């Protein structure tokens, strides 16, 4: 075992695929000598050179669109946008082109691109740099969407993402970048569609992903002192989704709480909650509880931001309301 930050995990995932396959290339704003806005690509430009780690203009349309063209013609680009919020400029390339090409061209063209999107609040970056927009992309058939919660998964899921012949949206939690995790000496690819049970419990299932996994584990610890054993499920990949893991857990605990950082309205948490209600209704002893951010853009002031975003206390309160 060794210690590694989440950001280093992502980098090691990219690096090991780059060593294996010359067609893996990186592009994005400041990914070159600067090493990426959050330092994730640090050192790769020096190691692999200008041709493989390309700084682009601040021009998200071409970053995503050129990645689509490159992926359709033999490369395996890993593109970084500085913040998930900037996907607005790259959305056509992702949802109308990358996601639909295989289907509408009758399977003739595949688009093996990885789009890295730093997401979430917690660093006082204000409303245009703090989005949790996974619902935008999980809504789109043709995309795979993953959201690792720790360095080991970040590494292993990057291996899978780059190997995948489909467009993969790889969402990263900004507040986790510098957090250290224990990582195995050899990291294997983490298959998509397989959730990870982070804690076993018998009384309630907490279903989540990304940064909220930590919050859920902290909440579970507090609840255990009060005699409530929570099971914590880290979905890891949002599509494909490990429905079995969710249903098995709910059948065991008979209560489910879904926590995501997004605004609840129209969020992916709503989809998860609806799925449990629809398909596990007979197993439930209480309505599914959804925890998310307040229904507002993310504010700047640290006090306000902390108030708006969900935390372990919100999870604890939510779970207590079910008993």
């Amino acid at each position, binding site marked *: 075992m060794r210690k590694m930050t989440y950001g280093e995990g992502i980098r090691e995932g990219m690096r090991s695929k780059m060593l294996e396959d010359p*067609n893996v*290339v990186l592009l994005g704003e400041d990914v070159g000598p600067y090493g990426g806005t959050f330092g994730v690509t640090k050192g790769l430009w020096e190691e692999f050179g200008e*041709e493989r780690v390309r700084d*682009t*203009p601040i*021009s998200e*349309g*071409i970053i*995503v*669109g*050129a*990645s*689509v*063209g*490159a*992926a*359709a*013609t*033999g*490369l395996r680009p890993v593109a970084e946008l500085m913040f998930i919020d900037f996907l607005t*400029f790259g959305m*056509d*390339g992702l949802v*109308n*082109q990358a996601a639909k*090409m*295989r*289907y*509408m*061209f*009758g*399977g*003739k*063209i*595949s688009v093996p691109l990885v789009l890295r999107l730093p997401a979430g609040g917690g660093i006082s970056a204000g409303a245009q740099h703090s989005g949790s927009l996974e619902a935008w992309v999980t809504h789109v*058939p*043709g995309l*795979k969407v993953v959201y690792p919660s720790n360095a080991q998964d970040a590494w292993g899921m990057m291996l899978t993402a780059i190997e*995948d*012949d*489909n467009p993969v949206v790889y969402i990263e939690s900004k507040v986790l970048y510098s957090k250290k995790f224990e990582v195995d000496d050899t990291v294997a690819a983490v298959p998509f569609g397989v959730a990870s049970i982070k804690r076993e419990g018998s009384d309630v299932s907490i279903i989540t992903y990304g940064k909220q996994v930590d919050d859920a584990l902290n909440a579970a610890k507090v609840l255990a002192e009060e005699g409530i054993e929570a099971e914590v499920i880290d979905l890891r990949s949002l599509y*494909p989704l490990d429905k079995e893991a969710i249903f098995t857990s709910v059948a065991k605990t008979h209560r489910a709480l879904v926590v995501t950082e997004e605004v609840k309205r129209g969020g992916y948490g709503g989809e998860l909650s609806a799925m449990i209600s629809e398909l596990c209704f007979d197993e439930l002893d209480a309505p599914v509880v959804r925890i998310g951010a307040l229904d507002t853009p993310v504010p700047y002031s640290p006090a306000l931001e902390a108030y708006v975003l969900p935390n372990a206390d919100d999870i604890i309160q939510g779970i207590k309301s079910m008993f």
Partner: protein
Amino acid sequence: MYRKMLSIRKFEKTASTFFAEGKIPGFVHLYIGEEAIAVGACANLRDDDYITSTHRGHGHIVAKGGNLKYMMAELFGKETGYCKGKGGSMHIADAELGILGANGIVGAGHLIATGAAWSASYRGSDQVSVCFFGDASTNQSTFHEAMNLASLWKLPVIFVCENNLYGISVSQARHQTIKDISKRGEGYCMPSFTADGNDVVTVYEHVQKAVRRARNGEGPTLLEFKTYRQHGHFEGDPGAYRPKEEVEAWLQKDPIPRFEKYLTENKLMTADELKQIGDEVDGEIQEALDFAFASGYPALEASVQGIYSDIVEEARSR
């Protein structure tokens, strides 16, 4: 080139007829009147060169060597079509011929063509990428983002603007202040030219130079060809926004009779030879139609298949 131009014309006349009869669903955007551009451009390309097309894509696909039978079957929504009946007129692609897709999104191809050119240059291949687009798409940010990157990275991409003077119903004068779109290339330090798009020889020569440049690693070129679509924006659009005299004037410049005249006057071909090609193309169109009619519709299960390379969408519930 003559055979290809005629194939496009006859394919589309057929599509127009069957659309009017209600046998082809959806939208059909015809290229009639613009054939010289696709044909003159693609005559310079190899099978492994790339093109991106628009919603008015039949011409580009035929010109790049697309199979008429699969195209026709696709228009009728049959399982033997290029896209197994899931794409339709606006979404035909053929990876083996470097056709990266007709596209229903105005301006999307600029980025994809630039990405394909980047891929070619990264792989050390001398493939080039030709991006076909209309006048109105040069108002999209994608045009400018692509031109900037292509110029900056010296990518082997040829931007071919088919200026048919209208963005759907809005004339060029009402959607941009410039007359010659090639001017926009100056802002990106890119060699740029405006030429007659209804003369296939002119188009051929301009694209030839641009392709040579691109293959030599000298970077992109912007070419603007002025032309005119003889039908409305889509089939069923009477095009009443266009003055009659303007339509009449452009019909006089129809690229096909013009090329016939060129070929006979220069004694490159006789009228009999031209007619024979016409008859052969008629036969190919009939074959394509027979193929489409004889083909079945896709099984309903196919609607949830082929979204991903590996996930079998066996029974996605409603």
